[in-house]
């Protein structure tokens, strides 16, 4: 087990090196630089040169790359060219917003997806089963931003039940020590803020969770169908074990193996793929931050943000592999 972890961590090294080169070269290849983006039409050659000198962009490419690697290793990504604040500080605000949204979306899809898949498998071949199959196919076929627009329109604009944009009403004044707004509200024991944050989370979480919901329901159904016909399940039934206990201890527990893998892979995607949901609901997370950064040619934000996201993505996938090994003792890691 330990050898497997070490080996997988070592495999991360070439990936990270390749990734840093890719991100670095990609940013240098973008048309227009931060100086032009900052100065706009007022740019003069002198002003451009000054800004390029300020951000070290006038040094040779290998020197710039080495500086970039050295600093990234210390989580120093420089200052944003638009807000002039350290990238790491902005990351500290944006990433919690994305994590909070992803967690809410995952909670929604797991709590609904596993029971749905289980019921569909139990009622295999019935109308309920067919309906769940159709629903899960629709779930992966509806573009996330279309669903987001519909949800926003019906529940926020038409019915006025939930807020349309943002994470918290401007009227509510609460400290944000962690930038996880739900956690902040709980820490400051502010019921009103907690209620308001949760209301802001509902629609984006449903929109973002729709695809994982469909996938989780589908995989759960397939896994339960597979396992129901295993010999040990028949044995358990034959010895007179109550059906509920057989389902819980033998069927569901084993069916969770593939489901866990899928959940892990989806978490990785949610942390990064919320660009469209964030755009519709004006959610101040990683996605909208990076898209704005591309528009502004905000090199430091792009370098830091993408590198950080990719690192999180790779680490989450590693954790998925490890959890798989822990859950399934039959898998020998070598």
């Amino acid at each position, binding site marked *: 087990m330990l050898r497997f972890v070490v080996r997988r961590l070592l495999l991360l090294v070439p*990936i990270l090196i390749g990734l840093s080169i*890719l991100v670095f070269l990609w940013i240098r290849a973008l048309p227009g630089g931060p100086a032009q983006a900052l100065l706009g039409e007022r740019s003069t050659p002198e002003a451009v040169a000054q800004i390029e000198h300020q951000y070290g962009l006038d040094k040779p490419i290998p020197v710039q790359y080495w500086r970039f690697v050295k600093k990234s290793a210390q989580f120093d990504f420089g200052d944003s060219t638009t807000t002039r604040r350290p990238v790491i500080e902005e990351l500290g605000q944006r990433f919690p917003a994305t994590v909070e949204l992803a967690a809410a979306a995952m909670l929604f899809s797991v709590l609904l997806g596993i029971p749905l898949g289980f019921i569909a498998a139990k009622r295999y071949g019935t109308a309920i089963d067919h309906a769940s199959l159709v629903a899960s*196919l629709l779930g992966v076929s509806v573009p996330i*931003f279309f669903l987001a627009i519909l949800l926003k329109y019906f529940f926020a604009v038409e019915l006025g039940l939930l807020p349309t944009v943002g994470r918290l009403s401007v009227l509510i004044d609460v400290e944000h020590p962690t930038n996880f707004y739900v956690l902040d509200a709980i820490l400051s024991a502010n019921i009103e803020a907690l209620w308001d944050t949760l209301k802001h989370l509902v629609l984006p979480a449903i929109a973002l969770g729709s695809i994982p919901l469909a996938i989780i329901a589908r995989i759960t159904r397939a896994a339960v169908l597979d396992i129901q016909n295993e010999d040990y399940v028949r044995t358990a039934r034959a010895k007179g074990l109550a059906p509920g206990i057989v389902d819980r201890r033998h069927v569901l527990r084993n069916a969770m193996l593939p489901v866990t893998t899928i959940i892990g892979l989806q978490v990785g995607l949610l942390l990064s793929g919320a*660009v469209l949901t964030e755009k519709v609901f004006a959610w101040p997370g990683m996605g909208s931050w990076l898209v704005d950064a591309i528009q502004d040619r905000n090199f430091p934000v792009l370098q830091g943000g993408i590198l950080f996201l990719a690192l999180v993505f790779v680490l989450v996938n590693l954790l998925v592999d490890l959890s798989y090994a822990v859950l399934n003792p039959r898998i020998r890691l070598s």
Partner: protein
Amino acid sequence: MSVAELEARAVELEAPSGLWRDAWRRLRGNPGAIVGFVLVGLFVLVALLAPVLAPYDPREQLGLSNAFDGPSTSHLLGLDGLARDELSRILYGARFSLLVGIVSVAVGLSIGLLLGAVAGYLGGFVDSLIMRAMDVMLSIPGFLMAIGIVALLGPGLFEIMVAVGVTQIPIFARLLRGSVLAQRENDFVLAARSVGVPRRTILAAHILPNAISPVIVQGTLALATAIIDVAGLGFLGLGPQDPSTPEWGTMLADVNRYFQTGPHLAIAPGVAIVLSVLGFNLIGDGLREALDPKLRGR
């Protein structure tokens, strides 16, 4: 009749049916796949016949005072914010979505297949080099990478097709490499090698045809993903820069701004995207079941 004769007859009855004929037979028996074929068939027909079917020019403004008009007999889906016939725009939009799906999957598929086949067949250093490069690409979430590539190439229809295609390269490369590796150890490959068939011919004539079925399934599903991703990029404003181009994702992006004035304008392009994507997903699922060797002969 002797037992041997009886068994011989039984064997005869189970004449070899061939993977593809077998798959086609099971595909026809799958109601989901049939619905998929109908949806995709309609989609292709609409795309091809858009100039005949569309009642108006999709770019023509029919009097700005009529903008946001709801559905009526002369305009079945109403008019958009610039008083253009929504139905005509949806019909013409099918052309872009179909083109986008085909081109981007063609980009991803061709490059991915080449890399995967070479890596799987040659093995060794080339294999490691190609697959590590694919790992790096996979470590960047697909949609984010597509945005990055569009940033590099500049916005535009062709650019977003290439961007979405590139994000699909590693998926196809991995898939085909795994498939080729599995086929390489087969007896018929060993036989071909022992009689001196050149490596290139073995790869092209013996390995690829047998390794291709998962690729076909993935290719169909990739068409669905490509249409959704391209619409998403269009929604972010990275699509065709000529605002009169009737691209479904771009049409939805406009709607997000004036939803309260014309909610009907969101439904039409959204439903169009859902139906075309659903069609490809249904076919892909049907193909997966039809080509699964574990289910063969049932």
